[in-house]
């Protein structure tokens, strides 16, 4: 896990459009005192590629050494205002106001502008579930919704469910039951798992619910069906099911 600031956001962030630290095949650093790869890579990119790199860097990127030329270059770039919009929503309880290109998905707003890189971009087409977040308590694919469509919404990401110091019970259960291997799908799996238990408790039926008129039960077959929108390429499914069963208080 990365070092985190008090508000739970990642302390170090890559330049916009560069997903160096989150490749599925490269698990990120697991201890907080490992040298910050994000900073190293950001500085390498900025130093090594000169002007080209500057174009990649929005002024809001929190580099270790703020760069005046970057800000100046950014300020000189024209912004076509009709393709931009302001939006205000809460993320993990904090009110955030953003100026976004209308094309920016909720996923990219969270990752690239708010530096909440816990939410992952997998397929970017709603097929894998890595980008799952909770909006007004409901799980959705953050890659298939525009940031500008979320005025006034309350968004919860993995950073808002728990912290390394105080894990959410579902996170704790994933750790205990080894519910991951590379970890890339895990934030989406955890957000989805939390919402699945809420959906069953709220009486929302599923494809495997036998009787539509009785309350769905907290069974493994129900949980597995409801988790089908979260793909795990490492195949940690049975351990994820065990973790969910433990949190649900049932036998897997």
């Amino acid at each position, binding site marked *: 896990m990365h070092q985190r600031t008090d508000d739970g956001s990642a302390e170090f962030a890559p330049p916009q459009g560069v997903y160096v630290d989150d490749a599925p095949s490269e698990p990120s650093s697991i201890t907080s005192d490992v040298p910050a790869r994000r900073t190293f890579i950001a500085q390498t990119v900025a130093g090594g590629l000169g002007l080209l790199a500057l174009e990649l860097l929005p002024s809001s990127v929190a580099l270790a050494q703020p760069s005046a030329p970057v800000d100046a270059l950014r300020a000189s770039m024209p912004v076509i205002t009709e393709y931009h919009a302001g939006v205000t929503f809460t993320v993990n309880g904090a009110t955030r106001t953003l100026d976004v290109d209308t094309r920016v998905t909720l996923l990219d707003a969270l990752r690239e502008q708010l530096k909440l890189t816990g939410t992952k971009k997998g397929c970017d087409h709603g097929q894998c579930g890595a980008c799952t977040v909770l909006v007004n308590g409901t799980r959705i694919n953050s890659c298939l919704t525009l940031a500008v469509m979320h005025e006034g919404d309350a968004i919860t990401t993995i950073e808002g469910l728990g912290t390394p110091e105080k894990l959410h019970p579902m996170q704790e259960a994933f750790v205990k039951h080894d519910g991951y291997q590379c970890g890339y799908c895990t934030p989406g799996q955890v957000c989805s798992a939390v919402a699945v238990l809420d959906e069953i408790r709220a009486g929302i039926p*599923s494809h495997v619910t036998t009787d539509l008129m009785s309350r769905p039960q907290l069974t493994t077959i129900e949980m597995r069906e409801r988790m089908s929108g979260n793909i795990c390429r490492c195949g940690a499914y049975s351990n994820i099911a065990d973790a969910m069963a433990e949190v649900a208080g049932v036998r897997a």
Partner: protein
Amino acid sequence: MKPFTYERAKSATDAAAAVARTPGARFIAGGTNLLDLMKLQIETPTHLVDVQDLGLDRIEPIDGGSGGLRIGAFVSNTTLAADERIRRDYGVLARALLAGASGQLRNKATTAGNLLQRTRCPYFYDTNQPCNKRAPGTGCSALTGYSRQLAVIGSSAACIATHPGDMAVAMRVLDATVETVKADGATRAVPIADFHRLPGTTPHVDTTLQAGELITAVTLPKPLGGTHIYHKVRDRASYAFALVSVAAVVQRDGSGRVAIGGIAHKPWRVEAAEQLLPRGAKAVARRLLAGAKPTRDNAFKVPLVERTLASVMADARGDA
């Protein structure tokens, strides 16, 4: 994505007017299909009109005590499937909804958006390939290509795409009606049977909606009673499109209605075939699929329809 401007409409008529007056404009509701297609530049709207503030998110009894329900266009698939009235009186619809997509997508996908979802034909999705539905006049790659998922009936020399959804198949068996409004405030009610089109020579036109016409609701007639079944056959147990699906409402005397998904450009229902239900699945399937033109890849769907129908009819009789 190509750049676009964005607005949130305040009323259904305003939304219709905004789309009608702006070239390249589209409505956006849940966005789960449109944004996917925009990322691939299969859809390239220049303006989006967001319909989330129009108050189209309620499920209400139809005025006049007819016993039916009016489902707001913006009602999510999850909300609709979980509604007690739908679960009790329109079980085939709840079952169809729950057989579709994933939990995350059902939470966002809307009733109207589900009806309007585009085909998942692989050539429609591949912008490097000819496709009459995506780029009219370029040809159909699927005719001589990979067509396992595609249509076996009602197709044309221009297109063998399928309507990919589950919900519409149940809506068809229930004889739902699609309510719309246009920019001038004029409303109309389109029977679901007339809503989706066959491809013919204009496969780029999926439905009979007119430009700028907004779906405001889908209404269901009074409950049919009977046993409601939705049986979806697919390549994996969850989160996959149908190869074949059967929506059925079967009465105690063996009469009933069936509509088939996954085999045509629209939910496939032949009322004359339903008369043959007491004679068994073979007779029904033969009539339903009269004139079918499967490809080598999807010829398996013809016997699969009959077998899925037989399974559904056994379930309806209560056979183990």
